[in-house]
């Protein structure tokens, strides 16, 4: 039985950055494996918000990745990017473009995953750096859309239970 190690901490260190932090009760090589293996990413990346339709990871510098999911509401969202720097089990730098906006690649963020282990536990941080504040703000708000979707689904459930 997995015990939650707490919630994600999201902070906004500067106008163009997002910093995501979370501790895991597992060694860093396993966190890295779960982060970079398609069969495993499929098990966690969509959260409870839909099913993953594409999960491609070409894990080498200059290699591409692409994730897509169909949200429960029926619309598909896709993300892609390129790996820039790879230190196995410790650090992964990649770009990330949200395919839902025009000229996605020009607005891509640079994401740095860092894993540090102490006493068998791993601190994970993801620093997301956008070229502009507008891009950063849209990124934060994309989570809000997903949340809205959850709310709509709940509403639907409630509504049908009233029939």
């Amino acid at each position, binding site marked *: *039985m*997995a*015990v*939650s*190690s707490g*919630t*994600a*901490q*999201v902070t*906004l260190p500067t106008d163009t950055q*997002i910093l*995501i932090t*979370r501790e*895991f*009760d*597992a060694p860093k090589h*396993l*966190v890295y*494996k*779960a982060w970079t293996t398609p069969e*495993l990413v499929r*098990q*966690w*990346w969509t*959260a*409870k*918000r839909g099913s993953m339709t594409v999960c491609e990871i070409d894990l080498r510098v200059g290699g591409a990745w692409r994730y897509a999911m169909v949200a429960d509401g029926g619309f598909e969202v896709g993300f892609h990017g390129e790996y820039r720097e790879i230190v196995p089990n410790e650090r992964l730098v990649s770009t990330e473009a949200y395919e839902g906006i025009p000229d996605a690649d020009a607005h891509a963020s640079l994401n740095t995953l860092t894993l540090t282990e102490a006493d068998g536990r791993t601190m994970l941080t993801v620093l997301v750096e956008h070229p502009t504040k507008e891009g950063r703000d849209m*990124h*934060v*708000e*994309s*989570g*809000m859309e*997903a*949340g*809205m979707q959850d709310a709509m689904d709940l509403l639907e459930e409630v509504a049908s239970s009233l029939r």
Partner: protein
Amino acid sequence: MNDLVAALGVAQPQVSKHLRVLREVGAVDVREAGRQRLYRLNGRALKPIHDWVKEYEGLWSERFDRLDEVLANLEEEEDDGSE
């Protein structure tokens, strides 16, 4: 003020400058107590930012809760493999 200087390791003029900006936007309240100025965080002013980030944070929390389960399975597999 002295507490903040000590905790942040930043020079006093810089702490003053930051506190002034925070006071101007209503993120902190200040009151005079003798020779001291006491600052208090104004949670209400920070709530819009919290609300804005909350959904995004929720998405990652859900992802990480599932990642916990993936990791628990991986650890089990690894333990089985080493026996």
